[in-house]
């Protein structure tokens, strides 16, 4: 058996098991730490599929930046588990759970089928036209960071420029919220 495929499967199973562990933690910090581990595993899986940029971005942005906010917020609020007691499942939540299970099973079978038929060959020998979009630039799999770049800066030019407005809005929003809260705090104190 191919060593890459073996590690891929082991990492995938571990990630799924860990997500079960994550949602059953009592302490939010534990859950956040497990989530970081899952994201790192996902990065490794992207890497094994030769998606170099996705692997790096998964760690730099998700595990290294977004989770920092989660961890900070949890540590700043410092709620003990008693205050986070869960009141039981409501009807709305039951419907949501049913829908999630339905979607998960559907996606699982579809992706699983695809993986079993094409995944075996594509592991380690994942060179193909699938990464090349409509643009004229194409780089081999070992340099596919450049393919991502080409599709972002040529094919999705406008979406990329709009992202800057999204980020600017988020920056302003964060400052407005935090500043308002701290001003209220100062009044109360």
């Amino acid at each position, binding site marked *: 058996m191919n*060593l890459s495929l073996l590690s891929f499967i082991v990492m995938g199973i571990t990630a799924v098991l860990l997500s079960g562990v994550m949602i059953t933690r009592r302490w939010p910090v534990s859950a956040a730490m497990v989530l970081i581990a899952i994201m790192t595993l996902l990065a490794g899986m992207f*890497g094994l599929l030769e998606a170099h*940029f996705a692997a790096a971005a998964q760690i730099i942005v998700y595990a290294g930046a977004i989770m920092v906010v989660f961890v900070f917020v949890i540590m700043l609020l*410092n709620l003990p588990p008693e205050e986070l007691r869960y009141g039981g499942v409501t009807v709305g939540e039951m419907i949501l759970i049913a829908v999630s299970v339905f979607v998960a099973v559907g996606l699982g079978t579809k992706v699983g089928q695809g993986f079993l038929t094409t995944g075996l060959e594509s592991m380690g020998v994942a060179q193909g036209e699938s990464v090349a979009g409509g643009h004229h630039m194409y780089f081999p799999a070992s340099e596919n960071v450049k393919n991502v*770049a080409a599709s972002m800066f040529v094919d999705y030019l406008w979406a990329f420029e709009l*992202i800057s407005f999204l980020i600017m809005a988020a920056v302003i929003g964060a400052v407005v919220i*935090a500043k308002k809260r*701290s001003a209220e*705090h100062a009044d109360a104190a």
Partner: protein
Amino acid sequence: MTASINPYLPILVAFVLALLVAGGATIASFLLGPKKPNPAKLDVYECGVPAVGTARQRLSVKFYLTAILFILFDIETVFLYLWAVLFGQLKWFGIIEVALFVATLVVGYIYVLRRGALNWD
């Protein structure tokens, strides 16, 4: 098996080895050290006086704001790395594109600066 293996497998090997080293050091120290606990030793350290209150208090919102701003500028940096690898191919088109992107973010940055959100007071 050929001379070239998937370049991510060595990371996995290195991770396992590093975990063995760090975990081994922890376990060795646990096994070798003496065990003489006493209440004062196990108590929380607060410069020698009895602890006042607990560490589970709410802290400044500044940390949260720093973390949020970090995410946003971090995403920007990651995008710019994509442009940098394709600098030679995108030519002036890419430079102008990125200049517009950065200019928008600089507007946001100046707003943050003007609101004094970056001052720790």
